[in-house]
């Protein structure tokens, strides 16, 4: 009698040992993502809230768009954050990847000058500075358009991104459109090499270095400038106005944006009050989710999270000076989600 009792206890223990990991696994899934530092504050906040509500933990590490896409194409993560869609280096993944726009931000020019004056820049001047043609803050070209402020007699130290970055991509795309010199010498690149100046990792790195070094200049997402209390350059848009980057001016820029065949990264303001270097940021996932031994639940969780991010999640961006997706873009994003499959079956159908 007792023997049978003990036996049943042992059996149940063994069963417990066998099934426990499965139970645990089923309980909380941890999604991992890597990539752009551009939307990093937004994602950190949004995913924090998502975990609170849905108990799904999401790890996102800001390593730069390039690193993120690389990790995704090697199929070791669930999703990648990126600010660019098409780029040399990842052609084989073009059709396997699906890009979902998550929010809109702005690339701003930050600098370290005493008293944080608001310096005006034309695209040509930015190009000249980053190409090393203008090396001093009291350069006549800069002075010419900044008559209202006193520019210090300081050399300019340029700070660039060290890693492959969507921010750089957007920034160079903008400069290529407006500066002949930039187009010829650099073009649209996700990394700037062979140019003078210092380099730093990620948006925080650039912000940190600029914060530290007086006379330096760099480019980051708007929120990094605001959080670190760094002055932002007023940049001339197509209408010839110098626009201060802010949620308002970004929204103005997005207002005139109409989607063509595919989404582009850079959003050029048509509105005369629009900030000229606004852009989308994306989350890239693999079209077919049954890779690397992933189970259905995981894929479902991913799509569920993404669906939330382009819907309810949008609210968390506004607080961080990002701009939410307009409704038409939200629709585009949803359509993109529909294409995600698990063993050929669209996943979005599983989610209410």
């Amino acid at each position: 009698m007792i023997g049978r009792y003990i036996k049943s206890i042992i059996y149940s223990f063994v069963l417990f040992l066998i099934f426990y990991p499965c139970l645990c696994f089923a309980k909380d899934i941890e999604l991992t993502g890597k990539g752009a530092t551009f939307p990093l504050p937004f994602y950190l906040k949004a995913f924090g809230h998502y975990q609170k509500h849905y108990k799904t933990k999401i790890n996102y590490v800001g390593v730069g768009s390039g690193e993120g896409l690389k990790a995704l194409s090697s199929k070791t993560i669930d999703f990648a954050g990126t600010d660019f869609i098409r780029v040399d280096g990842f052609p084989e993944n073009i059709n396997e990847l699906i890009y979902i726009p998550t929010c809109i931000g702005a690339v701003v020019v930050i600098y370290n000058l005493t008293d944080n004056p608001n310096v005006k820049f034309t695209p040509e001047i930015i190009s000249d500075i980053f190409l090393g043609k203008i090396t001093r803050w009291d350069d006549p070209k800069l002075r010419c358009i900044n008559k209202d402020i006193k520019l210090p007699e300081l050399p300019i130290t340029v700070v660039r991104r060290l890693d492959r970055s969507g921010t750089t991509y957007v920034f160079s795309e903008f400069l290529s459109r407006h500066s002949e010199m930039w187009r010829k010498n650099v073009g649209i690149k996700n990394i700037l090499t062979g140019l003078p100046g210092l380099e730093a990792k990620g948006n925080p790195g650039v912000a940190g270095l600029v914060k530290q070094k007086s006379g330096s200049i760099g480019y980051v997402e708007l929120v990094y400038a605001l959080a670190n209390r760094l002055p932002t350059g007023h940049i001339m848009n197509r209408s010839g106005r110098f626009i201060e980057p802010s949620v308002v001016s970004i929204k103005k820029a997005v207002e005139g944006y109409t989607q063509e065949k595919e989404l582009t990264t850079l959003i050029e303001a048509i509105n005369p009050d629009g900030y000229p270097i606004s852009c989308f940021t994306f989350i890239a996932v693999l079209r077919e989710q049954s890779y690397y031994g992933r189970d259905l639940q995981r894929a479902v969780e991913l799509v569920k999270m993404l669906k939330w991010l382009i819907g309810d999640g949008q609210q968390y961006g506004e607080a961080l000076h990002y701009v939410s997706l307009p409704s038409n873009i939200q629709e585009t994003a949803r359509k993109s989600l529909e294409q995600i499959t698990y063993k050929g079956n669209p996943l979005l159908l599983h989610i209410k």
Partner: protein
Amino acid sequence: MINIRNLSVGTRLGVGFGVLVATILFVVVMALMNMQFSIKRLSNIIENNNRKVAYANTIDHAVHIMNDAVNNILQSRSSQQWDLENIRLLTAQAMYDNALSEIEKLEQNEKGEKIIYSLKTLSAYIKQQITDITILHFEKRYALALKEYQHSYRPSIKHIQQLCQELVAYQDEASSVEYFNALKKYKMTLYVFCVLALCSFIFSIFTAIILTRSIKKPLEQAVDAAKKLSEGDYHITMDIKGNDEPGRLLMAMKELAEKLKKAKETEQQLYESQKMETLGRLAGGIAHDFNNMLSIILGNTQLIKMNASSFDEKTHKRCNAIENAVARASGFVKQLLVFSKKQPLVLEKANINKAITELYKLLQKMIGEDIEIKLNLDPMLPEVNIDVTQFNQVLLNLIVNARESMPEGGTITIWTHKEEVVVNNGNLGANRISGKYIVLSVKDTGIGIDRAIQDKIFEPFFTTKQNGTGLGLSVVYGIVKQHGGFIKLESEKGKGSVFHIYIPCVDRIIEAKSKEEQQESQGKNVLGTENILIIEDDEEIRNLIREMLSTQGYNTIVANDGLRGIEVFLKNKDDIDLVILDCIMPKMNGNKVFAEIRMHRQDIPVIFLTGNNPEKIRYSPDDDKNMIIVQKPCSLEMLSTKIREMLDSSYAFKKGPLDENTKIYKKGPSVFNLRA
């Protein structure tokens, strides 16, 4: 060790200066590089230090920002504020990590690495703490967050700041040590540079000395040589080492000196041979005339002796004394004739060695005991054509001279060998001809011959001896010359002399005289081959005349009285070309004989000999062009001249111009030898 004199002066100078410039450049470049390196190192140290300190400060700064941000979060209840402070935290962490990795790159010291490792672990630790605190705060568990902040976050921050300070302090210390080391090294290299400069300076001086010496020395030699040459001294010794320009100059000078020397020698030889030639002619001429005079003296003496024989013993004795003196004089003359090569050679194939050994036997007895004669004869010596008698005379003269040069005694060495003589300036020194020779060498250990008289000793009558004639070597010279050879003399005052006699293996007997000359000289002795009839009752006179005429080449027939004379004449009346007729004779006197001869031949020349009374001759040369009267005692010379004259005029009279053939004289002996 390579001989730099093999390189040309240009190359030498080029290489020398090249090396100098290269060395100087090398030193300068080395020094500059070293200084550059040292300065770079020093500034590197300073820069590294500055950068490390700057990064350490950045870390400090970043930590400060973090602290500030966390502080702000804790004090704020607005989520908007939290978000921004979160971003500040991100930025600060990026700064922290960036600075730390930069320091890590610069750090090479163990202690520094330890500090960096601690900073790294602390960084991760602090990140975790920040997340914990912010999460606690976001979840509104403010008290717990604050507690966490105070009890673990603050100390960590403090720890980091302390480490940063440590890093800076250590950095300062380490770099000062490194700076000191670098400075020490810098000084050291400065010192090395100084030594190097000194070395290159010494090296330059050394090179310069070698170069100048290598150029100067041969030039000085050349100057010396040129001076010597200009003073006429051709004995130049030069050591020519390289084939550079001065070397080639020296070589050229040496060649020049040799050429000059040779030319001088040739000139000397030419002069010598010409001198000897002239002397020879002179001596020959004198000897000939002398000889004739001697024969006249002798002939007359004999006549006197004949005439006086019957009554005067005294006259006889005096005549004998004259005859002896004449004999001695004719000995001299004979030697002179040998020197002037007027002695005919009787050539035969002979081995010189044999002649020497034969003479040697005789000499051994003759030569004093204090003198030793050594023979060293080459057994392979070929036979040559020589006049053995004359060769003996050569050897004898040489040996006699050798003995006379050694009054205290010594050794005479005689040796023979064969030698190939190559004369390369055969055009000038006509007395030497290339070819095979046999060489007879006579060496003595005597007084030697002074250089100043070496070219004189072969002249006739040159002597340094009280009783010497000075003819010994001139005879040797004449004989050797006639054999086509030459003489080489090696002698040094006080050490002895060697005479080398070169006799050509091939016949090269020099025809010293031209044919005409020979005929001329022979003509004086061999005057004709005509047949002469001598009719003379005095036996002595008859023989004297006969002897003379036969030596002069004529054929003579004698008759001792007139009757016999007619008899002989009639027998050979067509062959007889001339008749010598004594006036007073028994049986039939000269007048009758003459008449008889004229009866048979009108054209025949007749010489009437008459004593004290020529009026006894009834005929006169005025009537008969073919007769003359010669009064006794007459000189044989005059008689022979008259004979020739008569013969020649009778030819002219009888046969017209002289026929070439009659002028060819067939008989050889040409020396009128009184003694023989």
